[in-house]
């Protein structure tokens, strides 16, 4: 993923700051990654490299750890974050198909972020409302019974919102979601 303007400096500064208060021991790797991610929202390659240097571990090990734990992300959170539930109930009623539909619509894979950083897509395990399966969480909003058609609806609504925020116009109308 391409870094934004000024992002490089921000990454270096964040890592420096976290490393300043670190024991610089291998044991400190996970907390260090967590702190850097808390600052940046994700763990760009540059950050992993600098952390590896700082703690004197191979960058391959940092990468191994970041790809092992679900809590770490390799891609920046999108402006709109979609989380598809693949818990048991949701999976049973085709949550994977819902996920696939989002992948196709957003033209990214699960765990990725679109190049314009507008959308990111993740999978989660049980959100706690299995009766509404398959469940999707769109920017903190829980959506139930998300069939592929509904995916189209959600995406249209998000794109609409984007268009509006770009043109800054506010034609006074509802979100036109009925289908």
């Amino acid at each position, binding site marked *: 993923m391409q870094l934004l303007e000024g992002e490089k400096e921000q990454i270096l500064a964040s890592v420096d700051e976290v490393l300043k208060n670190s024991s610089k021991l291998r044991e400190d790797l996970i907390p260090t990654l967590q702190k850097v991610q808390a600052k940046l929202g994700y763990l760009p390659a540059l950050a*992993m490299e600098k952390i590896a240097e700082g703690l004197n571990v*191979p*960058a*391959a090990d940092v990468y*191994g750890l970041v*790809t092992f734990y679900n809590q770490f992300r390799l891609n920046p959170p999108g402006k709109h974050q979609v989380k598809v539930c693949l818990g048991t109930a949701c999976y049973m009623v085709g949550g994977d198909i819902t996920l696939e539909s989002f992948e196709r619509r957003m033209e990214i894979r699960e765990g990725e972020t679109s190049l314009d950083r507008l959308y990111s897509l993740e999978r989660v395990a049980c959100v706690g409302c299995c009766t509404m399966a398959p469940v999707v969480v769109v920017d903190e909003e829980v959506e139930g019974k998300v069939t592929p058609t509904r995916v189209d609806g959600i995406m249209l609504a998000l794109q609409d919102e984007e268009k509006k925020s770009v043109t800054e116009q506010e034609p006074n109308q509802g979100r036109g979601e009925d289908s």
Partner: protein
Amino acid sequence: MSEYVTVKIDGQEIKAKPGEKLLWVALDNDIYIPHLCGIRSEERSNASCRLCFVEIEGIPRPVTSCTKTVEDGMVVITRSERVDRLVKTAFELILSDHNLKCRECPANRNCVLQVIAKKRKIKLRHDRFKPIAREYELDDSPAGFAFDRSRCVLCGQCIWADREEAKVGAIGFTKRGINRVVTTFKDLPLAESICTQCMLCVEACPVGALFYKKKEPHTATADKS
């Protein structure tokens, strides 16, 4: 502490150095125990291949011999119905995610999987677990060797060589569970990573995943077949 301990493996009395792991003691004395992930100089084995099970008198269940330190008076048998079953299952699981085109493989006839299959009379092709036929991109970026992940059994021998022998740190395990792979930082091709192409990992690989290219390293496009 005495200079050695005495253990009995398959009825054979053996003197072993205290602190040694059972697996190596057995192998040193020509007693075969299948193994993929164990590394002799490693203090604590990953014990991830689950092939080196044995029965030890007084221990209710089979144990992995690569993690078990020899003790004086230990009585061990390397085969039992339970051991064979555990080993067969572990082996078949490994094979279900292994590219079985042996005839195309540079390690054919020189592959640890073939040895295990023969010694334990387990078929390489079985229908117990559905094969996971995955597509991996061949990494043939280094001059003298290549890496075909479809043959990798995730034993970790190459990573040990990279870290402890070559002292480079170019490769490691990434991801989790069924997606686990050996790769470089950022999944770069080996030649673009910090890999020094010392090829110690190729030496370490017990199967045909890391293999030498046949052609001379410097005749890049010599088209021989």
